[in-house]
């Protein structure tokens, strides 16, 4: 990674939709390149607004945002935007093209890429997201999960260094949600992306490196996801619920049974069996 090693540097960022509607106040934070950050908080805490500021879709009222070393200003926004991709909540409302193929190509056309390269990228990223067989389909013929894959492919095809997921999995069914989470995990694993996800989903938060908690437009906590789920008061204030495994370990602890944290799936049963056998 070049530059400062920081994807975002925010200095005392404030934003309001009007004098009576302050949304964000005095937000200062750094986000490392290649990291995966979850933005969490109750509805109306300003997390979606922060995502739009980061993506250059809104401009700050005061304070500054530096993206990979370049200050985000009115003059630089067109130059910075290509480095940031955004995936939104509603799979239908971000499907711009009339077919999968055209939707992936939409952003590339704006980049004025030569046709040969567009065709190559459309194919490469469609294959990567396993939608290669759907290229000619109309959005009405796709499921929500498939449409969200198209959205991710369309973003990744533009080869941004930063990808922001704004509640991207919240309208999907359980299976599609799990699949999207795996895509995020792979993206993280590739090391090519700085990822910011706004989410209520416990598993998604758990998979990220860092959780930033917003409340009333300010940063209320900035911690490891595991610590977030260990803090019941903080969870309540974000209206979150810990993953089942975490809750189980906590309840077991209340019953006097101590299991080291970090078990998942079958390991819990196995660990309990060990405890039982050793008695």
């Amino acid at each position, binding site marked *: 990674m070049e530059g400062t090693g920081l994807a975002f540097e925010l200095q005392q960022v404030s934003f309001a939709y009007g004098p009576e509607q302050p949304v964000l106040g005095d937000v200062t934070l750094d986000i490392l390149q290649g990291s995966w950050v979850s933005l969490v908080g109750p509805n109306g805490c300003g997390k979606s607004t922060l995502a739009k500021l980061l993506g250059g879709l809104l401009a700050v009222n005061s304070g500054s945002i530096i993206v990979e070393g370049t200050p985000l200003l009115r003059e630089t926004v067109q130059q910075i935007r290509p480095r940031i991709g955004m995936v939104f909540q509603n799979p239908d409302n971000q499907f711009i093209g009339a077919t999968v193929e055209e939707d992936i190509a939409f952003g590339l056309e704006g980049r004025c890429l030569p046709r040969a390269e567009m065709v190559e990228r459309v194919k490469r990223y469609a294959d990567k997201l396993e939608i290669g067989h759907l290229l000619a389909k109309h959005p009405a013929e796709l499921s929500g999960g498939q449409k969200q894959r198209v959205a991710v492919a369309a973003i990744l095809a533009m080869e941004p260094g930063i990808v922001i997921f704004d509640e991207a999995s919240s309208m999907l069914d*359980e299976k599609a949600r799990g699949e999207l989470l795996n895509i995020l995990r792979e993206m993280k694993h590739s090391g090519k992306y700085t990822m910011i996800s706004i989410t209520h989903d416990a598993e998604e938060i758990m998979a990220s490196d860092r959780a930033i908690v917003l409340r009333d437009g300010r940063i209320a906590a900035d911690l490891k996801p595991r610590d977030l789920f260990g803090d019941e008061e903080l969870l309540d204030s974000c209206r979150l619920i810990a993953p089942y495994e975490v809750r189980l370990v906590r*309840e077991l602890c209340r019953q006097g049974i101590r299991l080291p944290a970090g078990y998942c799936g079958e390991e819990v049963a196995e660990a309990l069996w060990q405890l039982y056998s050793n008695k």
Partner: protein
Amino acid sequence: MAIVFEQVSFAYDERSLWRHSALEEVSLELGTGVFAAVAGSTGSGKSTLLQHFNGILKPTGGKVRVLDFTLQAGEKQPPLRELRRRVGLVFQFPEQQLFEDTVEKDLCFGPLNFGMGAEEARERASKALALVGLDDSFLPRNPFHLSGGQMRKVAIASVLAMDPDVIALDEPTATLDPQSRAELAELLSRLQREQGKTVIVVTHRMEEMLPYVDTWIVMKGGAKVFQGSPAELVRESGWLERECGLAVPACITTWNNIAARFGLEDEEPCLTSEKLAWRVARLLERPGQSIMREGGG
């Protein structure tokens, strides 16, 4: 029986070139006062099934009996007004159906349509609002200025205001935050327990409904592949996950793993972390008891 389906089939665009079948010979019975949930992957026919409960869709094959109404394929349908009042149907993202400039007017829309007087409708509105846990201070407010969770509750109340005997909801918790989802599930359970309503929920997040539901139905490709109690669902979750694309939640897999290890398969499953922790603690207190197959340590 509140609801009886006899080999109900349904196809969209029945007589056209683009006919496509959404339900295939579904038979089911749901008793009065149950809390039932319908699960299954996207496109399995869950929503189509739900829309048969109050005659929004009419079967293209077979017979639907709801309360004392019968809808039979090929026969002239009876007037549906009374059925629609007695079976409230809440669609996905019901907040999108709100249109009045005050919560009260929106809540009165249903009751007035069903011929109630203005005074009675207002009374119903206030009662329905209380049922979803909102007080009368919401009545004069503009529904479009409420938060997403509150709008959802108002929209559900707008159906409850008709005082239906049966209430059927399509993915009522979708896109809400986790605690609002849990609260909504609890609220529906209260409607069933305290008001004696029959509640039927379509869901793809099984975990949040598990503590309350007494009958589970699983759909696949327009057909019913499972109906039974939570305990039966837990026992059959393996093949339902493998073959029907059911997203089985962690609380079920964890229980199944522990049950297999400790030989508890015949017990009532413990599906909340509290219950399971308590059960495990009892096991560890007295090693050797209630272990049938593997002896003790």
